[in-house]
Structure formats: structure tokens, C-alpha cells
């Protein structure tokens, strides 16, 4: 039972981590996924979060198979 965590752009570079798997039995919320994936590093305050490609927040309750993405504010266009 796993959750996939993904990291993009400057966040991926600063964490030196682009993707990892997190054990669902230890993660109830997005905040837990971050803590387990980063070994407890503090989440930068402007971090955006998406679960299954929809914006959400760190309190979101994760479930099996979820893809949780963490990234800095976007700069397209």
C-alpha cells in the first residue's frame, strides 16, 4: 500500500529528490507524506500541493495509489 510523492522545479533541486514511494500505513495526510519523503525537512511556506493533479492542502487525507506532488509557485505563460 503505497503513495507516490513527486517534487518539481526548485523544490526538486533543493531536496535532491524527484520521486519516491511512501508507505500508506504511516501516512494519513499530505503533511505526513512530506515528512516521510523528506525525512522531516520543513516544508517551504509557499509550497503548492496537488493530489492526483488537483490542488489541495497539507491536511488532505491520502489514500492508496494517490500521487502527491509538491512544487513552488508556478511561472508559465
Amino acid at each position, binding site marked *: 500500500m503505497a503513495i507516490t510523492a513527486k517534487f518539481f522545479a526548485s523544490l526538486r533541486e533543493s531536496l535532491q529528490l524527484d520521486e519516491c514511494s511512501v508507505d500508506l500505513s504511516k501516512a494519513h495526510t499530505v503533511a505526513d507524506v512530506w515528512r516521510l519523503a523528506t525525512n522531516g525537512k520543513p516544508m517551504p511556506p509557499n509550497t503548492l500541493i496537488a493530489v492526483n*493533479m488537483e490542488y489541495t492542502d497539507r491536511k488532505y487525507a491520502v489514500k492508496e495509489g494517490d500521487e502527491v506532488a509538491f512544487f513552488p509557485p508556478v511561472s508559465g505563460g
Partner: protein
Amino acid sequence: MKIELYGNPFNPWEELNRYQNEHSLQGRVGAACVFVGTMRDFNQGDKVSAMHLEHYPEMTAGYMQKIASEARQRWEVEDLLMLHRYGDIQPSDTIVLLAAWSAHRQAAFDACRYLIEELKTRAPFWKKETLLANNSTRWVQGTAKS
């Protein structure tokens, strides 16, 4: 409606012409509003020689669709075109082409403006620019909104 992500350079005017010719918009529309975003060779007081545009492919495509759907719900637009680059970009390359066609100008202006403003704050793209002076790279600060 066409929404697409391009990994290679494209000519926005040729794309616009081709789309208009293929979609027989003439007669139905009284206004076309077009936005073309282009890469500058300067930013924040520095000369910029190149840029890499990273994206989150599935989510980016999904959000472009979502933003287009929202525009169609808010305004009476006849058609929309959204093309956006990703990957390695050079100064003067087109980054984004947006077009909104409508019977009247107000809806075309409003919808086109909505597309670019929402793209810039919700579609997951990130720009990393290379500075001409010393070839160093830096991430362009984004705007937060979700």
C-alpha cells in the same frame, strides 16, 4: 477548440492562420482576441541567454483544459486556442499562443485575458533562466494561487 503543449518552437501566426482556416469561424464571429507571449532576452536587470520551461505534463494538460472550460462557461466564446511551449527555449521564441473568438469583442477580450492570467497562476510550469554574463541559472519566481 485546440489545446496543446509543444516541445519545439512554433510560429504563432502560422498556427493561428491554420486554425482559423480549418475551423470555418468566418461569419459566426465578430471578434478574435489573441495573446502571444514571447521569451525576452532580459529579466530583473540581467541579460538572459536561454530558458528551460519545466512542467508537470498530465497536470498541466488537465489545467489548460480546465481553464478553457471555465472561460467557455463564463463568456459566450465560439472557440478557443491554447498552445504552450515546454523544454529549452531561446529569446524571441513564442512561449504561449492564446486566442478567443466570439460574436462580440467584450467576451473575446475577457476570455483571452482570463486564459493568460489563470495559466500564469495555476498551470504547473516553472521557468529556469540562464544568464548571459556567466552562464549561471536561476528559477524565475512564480505567483502563488490555487
